[in-house]
Each structure stands twice: as C-alpha cells, then as structure tokens.
C-alpha cells in the first residue's frame, strides 16, 4: 500500500526530484486529458446547430476581412511567395494555434474552479486539455488550407512534411505561457483580460498577415513568435527555412519557457484550490 503525506510546502521541498514526479503525473493523467478535451469539445458545439463548422467559419471570415482590406488597397501588402489569401491563411492558422491556446489555457483553471475546489486531480490536465482543444481546431483549419491549395492550384514542396515538426516549438511556448498565466489568473483575474489584449496586439506586431521583408526591424528581430510562426509557413510556401539561426534560438527560448513554467505551476498548484 502506498502512503501519501500532505504537509506544508510539499512540492517546494522536492528539489530536483520534482522532474520525475511531474512527468509521472502528466503521463498517468493522459486519459483524463482526453476526457476533458472531449468534454470541452462536446459542450462547446452541442447547443450550436452548425456544430464544429464554427471552427471553419470563424477563420474563413477573418481571412475574408484581410483579403477585402488587401483588395480595397487599405492594407498595402507587397508581393508574397504565393497568392496572398493562401499566405495569410497558413499564417493565421499557425498564429491561432498560439493565440487560442494561450487565451483558453489562461482561463482553463478559473472556468473549472468549482471542480478544482472539490476534487483532487492533477490541475495541469486542465491546461493541457485546453491546449488539445486548440490543436484540434487547428487541424480542422488545415482542411480549409487544403481547400485553398486546390483553389489556387498550389502544390506544396516535399519539405512541407516537416511542417508538423516545425510546430513543436510554438506548441511548447503556448503550453508554457498557459501554465504560467493560468496560475496567475487563479489569483489575479486581470490576467485573462490582459492576455486577450496583448495577443491581439502581438498578432499585428508579428509578421503573420504580412511578410517580414523589413528584416532590419528590431521588433521583428527579437520577437521569437516571428520565427516560430514563419518557419512552419516557409516550409510549406518556399520549401526552406529562411532564418535557421533565429528559429533555433527561438525554439530554445520556447523550451526554456515551457520547462520553467511547468515547474512553477507544479510547485504552486497546491495553492490554487484555496485561492480560486
């Protein structure tokens, strides 16, 4: 029989032994992540007639807006390697993996507050399940991307098979930020509001819907999201990684954020139920 001990500062005392415990906890709860993901998914689209079609309609309209602005000449976007709608759609799809992931991840603990206060389960699954939701919506949008390929008679180069691999860093960054922000949002609800503002700002500050031709721009240069969004897109559109150095540095940064935030979350999670 395994005995469990509860005492003050339980996880802070673990030191480096915390890493195996963290991996064990998340591995053990993989089924729970799946269940919660299904639950969120079913609950989200159950009472909507159009159901999961919404996951297609929303990005479609967003892209439509940009195509319209581009055609009307309000937004003057220079030549892109492929037709602009295709370029923008791929960029936006990757971007939304990050943006919806962070926004829903930040709120994941608070929206399940009553569950956290009444049931003992590893809280990180809520964040991971929110992330899974964002990944699933991403995959639905990929259908839209393929339709656009057909419409514009575009055949992606073979390097595009590396696309999923190139997404790993942005996923790690998203999950890492979600852990940290969800934790802080448990205590200070300001965070959720701030996140949606900042994410909107970041979308325009990052070359998602326009090409990053002015590489001298200091903000583009030091913005890891620039590389994390553009590298996967470059693989599909141009069949090469345009800025290898930037991508590697950004990936290391993303991994660092992920590991640090995960650890912080794990240590501090015992404080969540009493504060939420």
């Amino acid at each position, binding site marked *: 029989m395994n005995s*469990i001990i509860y*005492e003050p500062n339980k996880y802070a005392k673990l*030191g480096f032994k915390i890493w195996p415990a963290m991996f064990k906890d998340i591995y053990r709860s993989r089924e729970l992540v799946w269940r919660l993901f299904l639950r969120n998914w079913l609950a989200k689209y159950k009472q909507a007639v159009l159901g999961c079609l919404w996951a297609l309609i929303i990005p479609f309209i967003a892209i439509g807006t940009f195509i319209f602005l581009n055609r009307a000449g309000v937004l003057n976007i220079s030549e892109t390697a492929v037709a602009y709608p295709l370029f923008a759609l791929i960029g936006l799809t990757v971007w939304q993996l990050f943006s919806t992931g962070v926004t829903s991840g930040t709120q994941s603990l608070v929206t399940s507050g009553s569950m956290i*206060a*009444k*049931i*003992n389960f590893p809280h990180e699954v809520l964040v991971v399940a929110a992330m899974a939701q964002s990944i699933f919506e991403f995959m639905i949008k990929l259908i839209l991307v393929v339709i656009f390929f057909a419409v514009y008679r575009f055949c992606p180069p073979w390097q595009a098979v590396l696309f999923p691999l190139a997404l790993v860093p942005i996923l790690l960054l998203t999950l890492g930020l979600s852990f940290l922000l969800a934790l802080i949002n448990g205590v200070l609800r300001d965070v959720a509001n701030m996140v949606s503002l900042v994410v909107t700002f970041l979308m325009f500050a990052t070359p998602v819907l326009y090409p990053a031709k002015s590489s001298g721009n200091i903000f583009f240069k030091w913005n890891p999201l620039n590389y994390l969004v553009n590298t996967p897109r470059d693989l599909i559109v141009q069949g090469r990684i345009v800025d290898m150095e930037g991508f590697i540095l950004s990936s290391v940064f993303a991994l660092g954020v992920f590991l640090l935030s995960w650890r912080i979350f794990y240590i501090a999670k*015992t404080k969540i139920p009493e504060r939420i």
Partner: protein
Amino acid sequence: MRDIAIRVNNVGKKFSRSLKYVMSYGVRDISKNIFGINAATHLLRKDEFWAVDDVSFELKKGEALGIIGQNGSGKTTILKMLDGIFMPDKGKIMIEGKAGALIQIGAGFHPMLTGRENIYVNGAVLGMTKKEIDRKFDSIVEFADIGDFLDTPVKYYSSGMFVRLGFSVAIHCEPDILLVDEVLAVGDVNFRKKCAKKMRELLKSDVTIVFVTHDLGVLRHICEKAICLRSGKIVHHGDIDGAINEYMTLPAETAHGQQGLKEIKKVSVLDGENNEVKTLSTGEKCSLEISIETKEEVMSPVIGLAIYDNTGTMAIGTNTRKSGFKIEKIKGSCAVKVEFPYLNLIPGNYKVITQLYDDSMGTIDRLEDAAFFQVYSKNYSTGYIFPEHSWSIR
C-alpha cells in the same frame, strides 16, 4: 490490531477573511514557492485566522469517523485536507491508500453533457481508466437508478437524480478511504437508506470512512467514533454519544434579536414539586418555565417551544396560540409555564428552543439551546414514544 489508515498530527489550516489579502498573500506565497523558499505557513499574518487548528486523530482500516460541528467549524476544510485538495499549513497528514472524496457530488459534471458522457468524464477525474468505467458502467447506472435519463443532459435532471449519479460514480472508484461531506441530504429517504447500507458494506470490506453530517441519526448508524469541532478545534474526540452531546450543547452563534428590549431570559426545567432539575423520568409530571423580560409592551404575544432529541429531530413542538392559551399583553418580567402531566419522552438527551412571537407570528426573540435535560426511565423498553398506558387481563 488493524493497520492505520489515516494519521493526522497537529494539523492546522489558515484562511484570510478579506479578498484583498487573499490576492496579495496568494501572489507572495506563489512567488516564494517559485524561488524555492519555504513559506512560513505556521505563522498568522494580518487578517488571517485558523480555520482548522491543532487537529489530531488516527483511524484504522475499516473504521468510520464522524465529524460534527456547527457551520464554519472547519469540517469540510478537514475533509479537503484529507483528500489533498488543500495542503495543511501546519502539521502532517498521512494517508494509507487511495482516498476518494464526495465533497460536493457532481462537482465535475458538465450540465450540457448527458448522464452517460458525464459518467466517463467524472470517472476519469476521480482517477478511473476507461476500461474500469466500461466494466462498472452497468453497475453505476443501476445504483444511480436514473432510468431513461441516461442519455439526457444532466441539466435536466432533478437534484435527487444528480446526487444519485454522482454518488454512484464516486462509490465505484473503490477508494480505500471514503471522505463524505454533507451531500446525501438532497436524496430521498430510500436513496439515503441505500447509501447508508452501501457505506456499511464498504466498512465491512475494510474501507475507512470519514463522514461529515448534520444528520445525527445517520451518523449514529454508520460511525462508532466521532469528533466534534468548534471554531476549528476539537472539543470532543471519542465515543459518538459524547460528541453528539457536545454538539447539542454548543452555545449557539445566533445572537438575540433586539437585545435587551424584549427577550426570553431563560427556560427552567421543573419537576413535579417545582424544583429546578436536569433529569426527568418518563411518566413524571413536569413543567418548563419560560422567563421573559420586555421593556416595551407586547400586545397578544405568542410563546413557542420546541424540544429536540439528540438526533436533531423535534420531539415536541407547541405554542400558546395552538394550545388555545391567550395572553393579552406582557410588560416587564413574567414567567410562562407549560405543564406536562405525564412526560412521554423516551430516555435520551433533549434540548429546548423557545421563541417569542408578536400578534402576527413575527419573531421577536428566539433562544436557541434554552435548556438541556436528560430523560431516564425504569419502565421504558423500546419504541418511539412512551404514552401513559396500563395492562389488564380478562
């Protein structure tokens, strides 16, 4: 000698009263943890108080412990610490085996999902694998007794069905230690009986139960040991009767209304010779005298009286109006006496609550725990009531 299942050593948990401090302490504690500094949790900061203080107890496998106490005395906080939802701020808790808690039934239920879907979600949250749930599915549905509603979203369930389903899922997790909060009160009589029966079965199979309730009847039925809490501290630990007596005699936290102006001063228990007593015997002539003091005049007041047994059930409830006794007015001090020529209460511990109403039955004052008395009997054998009776043979 059975193995220890739960060991709680000098455990304390503190909370803050104001939201402002909850937020700032939360940020500070979390940042300390981040930098690997152990927060000094055993000290009280401004605006904090001990919700649970210096609580220690041990439970062996297959034992049941009842926790009773008034609202806010720390019962649920203890359960949450035993389940690992809250970490103690002082002391240490050791749990042997898998704990399953019913703090609030259906806490993980999503209102939009059907009963079937929620069984899987809730089961997974409580730590069951899909295979386990598949295997136990029929048994869960059968125990919950929700019939045709299995594929209906749970938001259309009655509160009873909701509780039944939640309890059923939790029970099927097969915990070694079951922590039950006051959750079964919503279910109907049959379901409560079923739950009590199930809990006794679990006890026989060496499951340990910690049970928080206000239903002293059920408590007595399931537990043999109990602790009584007051403001987070244990005031009685041990036999269930002692704990229940302690609970019944806890001074009420409700204050008098309009203090000092019109109030019930005290209630005395009198025997047949009008001596004030603490014990009475079945069949004895006795009376209760209610002393009232009012500075203002009260027109046509009504005085009510209730006697509760130690399961919390009202044994006698009466008032002057129902009994056809009219009081024109009262002013200053007076004593109202109610006489029982033949006391037909069965042996046990009782408490008296009195209430003073105005003409339209609005409460002027209420005295909780107005008096306590014990009834013993030489000739009572068994049963619910003990009326005056005689035997004959022809």
